């Protein structure tokens, strides 16, 4: 991976009338990265994404994609594929006709059959878009975005409405595109997908970055959590803990392994069993929930 910025956003501001949707946002996406732009509802991520895609003009600040303005569609768009959050196809065209049309307009070279095979829609090639299920439309969306293996791909909620097999197939296809050098910008409400695949995450809240960095950098700001149940007659714990509403013990720690060792040693020494024991590293979900606590 090189450090060449494919996307360079500096002090981006977006306003709709009196509403300041995006405030002084600055970030870069480097070549080959999978960058996840996440946020709470109304955080401004769709506005940001649409500005970077070139659908919307910035109120102030600069946005460069491949060193050019994304509003310059003729020069920038052939290098990028966009999977919109909603389908946006002509209902009376077939799957094959739709891919061919958008593929031709993309000015990238590819075979419609190959792309349909990637998203497992070959058997639906002659079916009208209006007759597709929601999940099949999402796959069609993905097919048009990856037609011709673009250098930069925007995936806006790519797995919404997909069954687990389709999700896995989509992520396999994304992995292959990344192996070929594509850069991915992802928005999703499935945080486990971002946690598993994102090189870096921009976490937006109220129009600005609440945090930005790798998943490890974001999650290390919050303690890991250990939960278990104890009999009422158990002796005092050797570390600070809290009781949850269901009576379970909650331990928060920045040293998960050491704390677990200490707890298990203490339980063994006292002949106790830590029932319903749960322990795990901090997840993006926890970081998200913490935003609401701020």
């Amino acid at each position, binding site marked *: 991976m090189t450090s060449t910025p494919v996307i360079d956003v500096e002090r981006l501001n977006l306003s709709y009338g009196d509403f300041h949707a995006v405030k002084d946002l600055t970030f870069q996406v480097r070549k080959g990265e999978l960058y996840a732009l996440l946020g709470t509802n109304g955080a401004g991520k769709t506005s940001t994404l649409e500005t970077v895609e070139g659908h919307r003009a910035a109120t102030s600040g600069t946005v460069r994609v491949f060193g050019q303005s994304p509003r310059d*569609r003729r020069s*920038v768009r052939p290098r990028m594929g966009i999977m919109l959050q*909603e389908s946006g196809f002509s209902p009376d*065209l077939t799957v094959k006709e739709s891919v061919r*049309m*958008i593929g*031709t307009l993309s000015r990238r070279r590819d075979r419609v059959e190959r792309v349909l095979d990637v998203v497992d829609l070959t058997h639906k090639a002659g079916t009208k878009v209006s007759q597709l299920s929601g999940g099949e439309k999402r796959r069609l969306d993905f097919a048009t975005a990856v037609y011709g293996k673009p250098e930069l791909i925007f995936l806006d909620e790519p797995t919404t409405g997909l069954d687990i097999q389709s999700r896995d197939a989509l992520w396999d296809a994304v992995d292959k595109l990344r192996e070929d050098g594509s850069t991915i910008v992802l928005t999703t409400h499935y945080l486990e997908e971002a946690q598993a695949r994102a090189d870096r995450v921009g976490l937006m809240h109220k129009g600005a970055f609440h945090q930005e960095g790798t998943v490890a950098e974001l999650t290390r700001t919050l303690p890991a959590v250990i939960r278990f149940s104890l009999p009422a007659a158990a002796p005092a714990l050797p570390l600070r803990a809290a009781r949850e509403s269901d009576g379970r013990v909650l331990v928060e720690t920045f040293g998960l392994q050491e704390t677990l060792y200490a707890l298990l040693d203490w339980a063994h020494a006292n002949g106790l069993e830590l029932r319903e024991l749960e322990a795990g590293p901090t997840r993006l979900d926890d970081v998200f929930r913490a935003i609401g606590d701020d």
Partner: protein
Amino acid sequence: MLSIALGELIQIFRNRLVLVTSFIMPTAVSAYFIRQHEVFADLGSLGYIAAVVVFTVGAFGLYTTTVTTLASRRQNLFLKRLRSTPAGDADILSGLMLPVTVLALVQVVAILVVLASVAGEPANVPLLAAAVLSTVVMMLGLGLATAGLTNSPEHAQVTTLPVSLGTIAVASWVGITGTEELTLVKRLLPGGSATELVLNAWNGGVPVADSLLLLAPTLSWVVVAIALASRLFRWEPRR
């Protein structure tokens, strides 16, 4: 642009409702005028029938279909999809409107050829062609502007009425009463000077140079419509 136009053409021929709206209805109405041409000739002239044919197809076959198509493509986010590609805005709009424009022109030419064969040829065919083309461009411009005010295809059933009925009414008024009285008003109304141009081209008797001046109001309406469209047209549904 051509790939978008091809897609639109495929859809026109797949959708029966669009076929009825854009093809059968104007043809049926126009066929009625031709069948009753002697009756209408008594009211005004054969040029009047030609003008009503041009504006019937222009209003229902072209203008209404343009507004409905653009509103529909916007509503289902197809316009946004097309704008996600390298295609420019002018290419997108041209591609979307090309098939219906060609269809309208084919309808007008076919009906006028039939009219000429049953009732007599027009006096000046090139002038008639100029009148038809300027009318088509005006209706397209008005369609773009109206599409900016139209949220959905259902909404288009209402928003297209003023222009479609208005231009046909103006064509009938000018065709029946001529432009000797209220000349300026009739020529400045949308479709008024275009109707007079059709009348002059078909009936003859007016110097070509005088007739060509009648293109100016029609082209002015094109400029007004494009200016309105550039302010009003939206590529995405209102949030």
